[in-house]
């Protein structure tokens, strides 16, 4: 008997009589999603800016970056060229990556992206700084709303990011920039 069949047989014998699957009927109170998203993301070390449109956001985000630094700006629709076969190691020196998200969560400051928006899954981690453009209309209140929006979406990789990479492993002192991006700026587009 394979380990698989052995484990399944032992588990089936051990598990108690079937209990019902509860409905997730949680209805949090209504809130001002822009205000809450801004307060929460700022509270966990991120930055929130506002811009009228994509062009304005891109211009402001790249201010101060010189030609010697690597900036990657991803189009808002990844339909130009399939870059998923690129060697992800080529992204090792990226200083700023600007990506676009179509969903963000007010209660925890998280943005949601899938690999279609990333070129390479490692991009939002390996870049020194991360910026995310989010239309204001993409804000939802809670994670329940977020998963309702994601629904049965098919993706290879999906990701919530809430703020810059961080650690408090040394004496509980909070340090931003552990292994992932050192900063996270979300620009809310009107």
């Amino acid at each position, binding site marked *: 008997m394979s*380990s698989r069949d052995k*484990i399944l047989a032992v588990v089936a014998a051990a598990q108690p009589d079937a209990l019902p699957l509860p409905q*997730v009927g949680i209805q949090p109170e209504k809130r001002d999603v822009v205000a809450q998203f801004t307060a929460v993301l700022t509270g966990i070390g991120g930055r929130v800016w506002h811009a009228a449109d994509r062009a304005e956001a891109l211009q402001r985000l790249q201010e101060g970056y010189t030609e010697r630094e690597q900036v990657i700006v991803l189009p808002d629709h990844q339909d130009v060229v399939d870059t998923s076969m690129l060697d992800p190691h080529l992204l090792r020196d990226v200083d700023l990556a600007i990506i676009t998200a179509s969903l963000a969560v007010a209660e925890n400051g998280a943005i949601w992206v899938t690999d279609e928006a990333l070129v390479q*899954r*490692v991009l939002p981690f390996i870049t020194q700084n991360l910026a995310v453009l989010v239309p204001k209309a993409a804000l939802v209140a809670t*994670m329940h709303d977020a998963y309702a929006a994601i629904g049965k979406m098919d993706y290879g*990789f999906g990701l919530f990011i809430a703020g810059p990479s961080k650690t408090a492993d040394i004496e509980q002192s909070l340090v931003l920039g*552990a*292994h992932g991006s050192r900063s996270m700026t979300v620009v809310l587009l009107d």
Partner: protein
Amino acid sequence: MAVVNGKDHAALADVFNKDKARVGWHDETLWFVRQKRDKAAHGIAEWEQLRQTASDIKDHVLSRLSQYLVEFETRAKENGIIVHWAADAEEHNSIVLGLLQKAGVNRMVKSKSMLTEECHLNEFLAKKGIEVIDTDLGERIVQLAEEAPSHIVLPCIHKKKEEIGALFHKHLGTPAGNADPQFLTEAARQHLREKFLTRRVALTGVNFAIAETGEFVVCTNEGNADMGAHLADVHIACMGIEKIIPKREHLGVFLRLLARSATGQPVTTYNSHFKKPRKGAELHVVLVDNGRSRQLARKDFRNSLKCIRCAACFNTCPVYRRSGGHSYHTAIAGPIGSILAPNLDMRQYADLPFASTLCGSCSNVCPVKIDIHDQLYKWRQVLGKEGYVPKSKELGMKGLAMAVNNATMFSVGGKLGRWVMRNTPFVVNNGMNPWFKQREMPEAPKESFREWYAKNRKEG
């Protein structure tokens, strides 16, 4: 009694307690984390409803676990994930070794996985000549120190920054005497970035696996799991079979609870949903039993398998905070570890259910409502019946049982105790009495409550 190098929990706690200043710091720091958890929980009006829902979902999963495992396997395979099954730690370790050999490598990066600690994977692979680099900062620190993690969320919470500075000076070449957390974290970032960029195999743990979609979710704050997995040719994810949840929408419940319960954050920084392998890369999942099915069959203890590893019960526990994680001599310390470990080995871990005051704080903070303190109490009964409780404790318990069952003996015993404490305090105020450690004995009252009540009732 359970021992490690001849020492049980109490003896190992004695070692930790020698450094009074450190114990005080440890206690206060973890209590601070507990307070952050409270603040985060109190900010959610529906918190109790969330806990109940999470608990009910997990109860349901345990009652249909075999079906959900099959569903997860089917969906995962459709997604292109290669699924492996391991009955025990040994099989788990040899599966991982086989994958490394197949990839033709002798080194890999690994993010936090308490399961691989439980299976002693690092030691096993080291013997086979494979170098494993732990990439969570706290885990890298304890790895350099050749120690085990002392806390499942904060692996090196037992260490002071000066010790970490000295370790980094020795192993990473940082300047001697520099113990600044910001500086040391930056040094680790540079050191580990080189590992991420050069390792071809990455191993991660799993926080949640979703039966409906065949995907799994890994949560970190540092981003180390993703740096490893997305740069490697082969990603191996190892999970206990109890990590399954039925539907993707249930992540809404668990991700709202996990980080708030663990550190007081609204959510972990990175919550990565791995559904299909990256183009050109391999994605493996190893499903591990290692005693979980045995625990599932124990009616009184099965719901310990609902645990989502937030460590809220560690941070609130008055015993954990003052004895340190290493005193538990098992991969998962604290109250939850003390009800999981006896299932793995009753003899070796018979001391752990006694490392508790049964105050119940663990059960009160548990996001999936595990009755931890009840199970600690029940393990004591089981271990006593099976003959794993030491004679001294058994005699004391029997003596107490006799006294409380006999009114005369109870009243005479109480009188005697009060007389001794008043007139010959040196009999109890010495190192022979474990209750005297780190505290003064109280002043004994002149009369018992029963005597006081009898007198006052007459007067009233």
